[in-house]
């Protein structure tokens, strides 16, 4: 149900909730960006609504809350492995609608594709999601094309409007805490159009996998993997064992983020690798995001946040790539007819 309350009241509620939850939200890290005097907006713990960056898109997604960049799975000695303890507290995550759709993609991989992932599930089960509205579209966003501009399966929606905090709660704990506050209908802000529009080809013939089209990306991509790391739906990892320098027989098994653009992703023992060409890596990623994932799971993987376009140091546009691929598919179909 909807409420109008004050920042003070809301902060007091979060202060209470912080006994059981870590609260994560997009924060501005002043001067922490890649270049001098450039800020970065990424996820961090907050204790006050004023710390949240509501006005701009975050450079990185929320995914690191549920899928840490490096996560210890086991502690081991020579003949024993002990599962790493779960975090002591749950989490509350502020995120936008597109990212909330991204959560469904993570759920699909980690809870439905093959065995349930213990580590993901134990975090996921203890996490609440609070929607941030979008009054306007940001650069490179194409959520409307992907159908992710609206969400209703949030635990709460929160908007700070001066001295009023608008809340729409789907969470009984929050309802209880807000009892006595002015009830009022609250509808999340959402955009209805983006400057960037993509048209996704329904099918892409496999003959186009080797089209010269991809060579352009092969020439420009530097295989840094930033597009994967900022993407809320990129969920790949690599197993990594480390051992302690003081005791070489004990150590940890971790999983760390992996990127299909970065060298080594497909390396097998003995040195054979697939997709050595960077253009082919782009093709692999694009097809996963807007083609083969949907064939397997029923919805597109890409949620249209545009962070990959924001971050690429070579100014490669994923959105443009989709549209150019669509043109290429249409031209190919015409030629065949």
């Amino acid at each position, binding site marked *: 149900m909807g409420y109008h309350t004050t920042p003070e009241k809301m902060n007091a509620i979060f202060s209470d909730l912080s006994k059981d939850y870590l609260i994560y939200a997009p924060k501005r890290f002043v001067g922490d960006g890649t270049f001098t005097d450039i800020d970065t907006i990424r996820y961090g713990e907050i204790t006050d609504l004023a710390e949240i960056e509501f006005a701009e898109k975050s450079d990185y997604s929320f995914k690191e809350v549920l899928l840490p960049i490096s996560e210890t*799975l*086991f502690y*081991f*000695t*020579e*003949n*024993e*492995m002990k*599962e790493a303890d779960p975090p002591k507290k749950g989490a509350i995550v502020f995120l936008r609608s597109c990212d909330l759709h991204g959560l469904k993609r993570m759920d699909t*991989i*980690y809870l439905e*594709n*093959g*065995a*349930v*992932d*213990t*580590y993901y599930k134990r975090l996921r089960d203890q996490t609440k999601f609070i929607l941030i509205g979008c009054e306007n579209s940001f650069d490179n966003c194409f959520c409307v094309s992907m159908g992710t501009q609206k969400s209703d399966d949030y635990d709460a929606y929160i908007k700070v409007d001066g001295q009023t905090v608008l809340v729409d709660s789907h969470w009984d704990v929050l309802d209880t805490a807000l009892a006595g506050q002015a009830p009022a209908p609250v509808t999340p802000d959402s955009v209805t159009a983006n400057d960037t529009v993509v048209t996704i080809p329904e099918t892409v013939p*496999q003959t186009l*996998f080797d089209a010269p089209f991809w060579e352009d990306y092969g020439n420009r991509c530097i295989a840094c993997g930033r597009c994967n790391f900022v993407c809320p739906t990129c*969920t*790949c*990892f*690599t*197993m*990594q*064992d*480390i*051992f302690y320098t003081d005791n*070489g*027989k004990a*150590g940890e*098994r971790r*999983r760390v983020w*992996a990127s*299909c653009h970065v060298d080594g*992703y*497909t*390396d*097998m*023992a*003995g*040195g*054979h690798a*697939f*997709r050595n060409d960077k253009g*082919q890596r782009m093709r*692999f990623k694009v*097809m*996963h995001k807007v083609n*083969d*994932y949907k*064939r*397997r799971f029923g919805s597109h993987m890409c949620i249209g946040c545009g962070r990959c376009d924001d971050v690429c140091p070579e100014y490669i546009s994923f959105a443009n790539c989709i549209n150019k691929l669509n043109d290429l598919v249409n031209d190919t179909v015409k030629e065949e007819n």
Partner: protein
Amino acid sequence: MTTTALNTNNSDNPYLPFLSEIIDVIKHTEIEYTFKMTYSGAVKPGQFFEVSLPKFGEAPISVSGIGDGTVDLTIRKVGKVTDEIFENYIGDTLFLRGPYGNGFDIANYKGKEIILVAGGTGLSPVKGIVDYFSAHPDDCKSFTLLVGFKSPNDVLFKKDFEEWEKNLNVIMTVDTPVDGYCGKCGLVTQYIPDIPIKNSDQAVGIVVGPPMMMKCTITELFNVGFKEANIWISQERKMCCGIGKCGHCKIDDTYICLDGPVFNYTKGKFLKD
């Protein structure tokens, strides 16, 4: 043997490995050994285990033999993880998890004329099939095992070949002979046209090996009249997790670890990395 609670763990954590004892070590070449490991549970040829040693990581290794309470893992010393495994001997233990993947279904091949073509270590995942038909030759119309190795020094499963030759038509060839070698030479493909097959449109082909070897072999099987739907392949990829999460083995909408590694060629031909 040191036992831990892991051997009887009830955890639902799919990443938790169990300890397995090394029962025997068979040295095939300087760099390729078979480790016979304790394992009791259902397992099929073509399935794989994630084999790990703490401190070094995990590697997907296919099952190269199935015994009573044991599985064979044939490992080539070519990577960080596999190098370390070679420091282990009888009585030592390794951590395993699995088996993963679909494996080969022997029922698909019973009563048929079968040509099994393997290249090098590609023989490991199909060795269980060869073992089966060697022990049950009446379960198929005919069985030809065609295997190629780089050189006579790279031949795997020498003892097993002696056994197989009793009941099966075995053709072994090497790319590069050495002095004193008097067996067959050349690529496996050149021997396919001479294999006696009565009804090639009913015969089964099983092909496992390096990508180029598989491609050329399948082309040759088509040339002698094999049907796509009767050809089976197994795909080797980097399977980090084995349970559809890590993404490394994904091709198109297919996860090799979940949907493969064994594919009928009608599906397998569409797998483009």
